[in-house]
């Protein structure tokens, strides 16, 4: 009977600067030691320097699918991508493998509970609202339509199902006007330069409605959201394990406001100690 220890995989760090944070180094060392202790030996660890995050992610997947680069070795079973500014528990991999291969066997991708860097630091969990939602650690493993790529484990079968690279690409967000332009161009390419739909009054109506409902400025979809959109279109279940919390290391400018906040908190505590809440 095989166990998760029999699975082969790739822990890939992505660094866009070429360096990793001290916090990340410490977490990675601890995790590697932990993995050795519990018998998770079939793991390749590598820190990848990528100038562009999307091509770096693709390169990691390509390596996971063809570890020697000559198709002489079977693809890994899984790939764990972690950003170089993450912090995570030592049993991160163990927990994710348990989730992906024991508790949520249908999962194609499982992300961790991670806060967005920007205020108000919502967790990167979208269960269908199209926005990052209010969720908290301890909610279990929940199905999502989208999460971030800060730290996620994907079964390599996911990428095989999607087809060849690229898997991670930033794209311009779709809107009605863009969609109609696409249709218009598609028609002209295949109907001798003509779009007969334009002759119908409904086309003009739809075009006017599209103009009204399309934002003036184009918005982009990040490589992570774009990837999860593709997962969804391929019927690949994506989850976030909210019990596995990863941190986001960031530079913070300590300002007087931080001191003020700390002092107020301290005063509130002192008053609470006197029975004033």
């Amino acid at each position: 009977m095989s166990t998760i220890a029999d699975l082969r995989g790739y822990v890939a760090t992505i660094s866009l600067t070429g360096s990793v944070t001290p916090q990340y180094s410490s977490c990675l060392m601890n995790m590697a030691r932990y993995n050795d202790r519990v018998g998770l030996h079939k793991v390749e660890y590598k820190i990848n320097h990528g100038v562009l995050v999307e091509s770096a992610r693709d390169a990691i997947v390509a390596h996971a699918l063809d570890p020697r680069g000559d198709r002489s070795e079977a693809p890994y079973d899984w790939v764990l991508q972690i950003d170089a500014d993450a912090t995570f528990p030592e049993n991160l991999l163990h927990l994710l493998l348990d989730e992906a291969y024991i508790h949520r066997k249908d999962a194609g991708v499982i992300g961790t509970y991670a806060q967005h860097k920007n205020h108000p630091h919502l967790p990167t969990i979208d269960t269908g609202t199209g926005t990052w939602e209010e969720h908290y650690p301890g909610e279990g493993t929940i199905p999502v339509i989208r999460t971030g790529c800060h730290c996620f484990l994907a079964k390599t079968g996911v990428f095989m199902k999607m087809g060849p690279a690229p898997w991670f690409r930033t794209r311009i967000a779709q809107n009605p006007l863009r969609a109609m332009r696409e249709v218009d161009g598609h028609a002209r390419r295949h109907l001798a330069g003509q779009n007969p739909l334009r002759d119908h009054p409904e086309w003009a109506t739809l075009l006017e409605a599209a103009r009204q409902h399309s934002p003036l400025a184009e918005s982009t979809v990040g490589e992570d959201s774009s990837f999860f959109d593709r997962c969804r279109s391929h019927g690949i279940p994506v989850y976030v394990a909210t019990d596995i919390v990863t941190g986001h290391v960031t530079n913070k400018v300590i300002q007087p406001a931080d001191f003020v906040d700390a002092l107020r908190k301290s005063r509130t505590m002192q008053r609470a100690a006197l029975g004033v809440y």
Partner: protein
Amino acid sequence: MLAAYLRSLRALQVPQDAELEFGFVHDGDEQQLAILRIFQPTVTLPPEPRPADAAYGIGKDTHHWTVSTFEHLARQKQRLIEYAIAEHYTHIFFVDSDLLLEPTTLISLWETKGDIANAVFWTRWQNGAGIPQPQCWLSHPYGMAGLGMEEHEFLGSLSKRQVIRCIGGGACTLVDVAALQRGVRYHPLLSGMPQGGMWEGEDRTFAILAQRTHERQLADGWPDIFHAYHPHQRTQEALDEAWAVLSAPRQVQANYGDHISLTIEPMEDAGLAESLATKPELRCVRGRLGGLELAPELEAAVLEMKPGEERLVELYYPPWHSLPAYRNQKRIVKLKLVDIRPYGFAPVLAEVSFAGLDA
């Protein structure tokens, strides 16, 4: 004005552990001296010649003064300080002669235990215009933001009758003589200060020196004080009306909805007691009974107590208390009910805090 002022001083309630004596500086007006003699102060310092240009004018819209005015005023205040130190008083309570104080003012300041405690009153400096401002500040010469507070936080806290730190104040100030012995003074005025406007006031010299000697200066928003600043506020009718409100009998037992002023001191937790010892405003609690979130033992005690009463109260900290170290613990604290007042706003402040049902 002087008679109304003296009536207000005479009505001041004195802290249980204090005695109060009165001292004045005679400015040479014989008519006023006659009124003072009836009042029988402990001391009236003889007049000093006032320089010709040391005028103080009360105009229709605001007041006017010169640098020489402040120099003279600072000197007179300093004479009172020198007298207090020589006679071994522990505190001096400076009260400007255009104020009417509610009787519990001194007790409120006393209970803050600040080195320098300023009773807050609110004034529209331009007659009929502008929002009322307190006579204490957070940045020199008269800024309402500082010490980590935005202007709205500072003014909002004072309007809710809180005790908070400030870096300067004046006109109604209780000063620990120890602070004066450490070098805080009114006169001579500090040299090298910016010229013009409020920088020239003797209060700035006093406040800046207090900062230099690390005195804890507080602004106390509890007392109701009437500032007879504009001519229409100095009429006998206006003064009588204000005094009727300030001196109205107060209830001796708190009801839900009343404003209450408490002090709470830890009796057991040495670390906490030590940390609070340097932060007088932390031990002062003000708010509306029922609106303040007090431990139930404190609330029950307050409902039974009379102003001035002290009581040891055993607090039980429930299992969900915000401080883990206190959960399921008991601690004894000393509770003092300093004052009770019906819900309402300070004079002048009421005009902007509660426009009324007709607004």
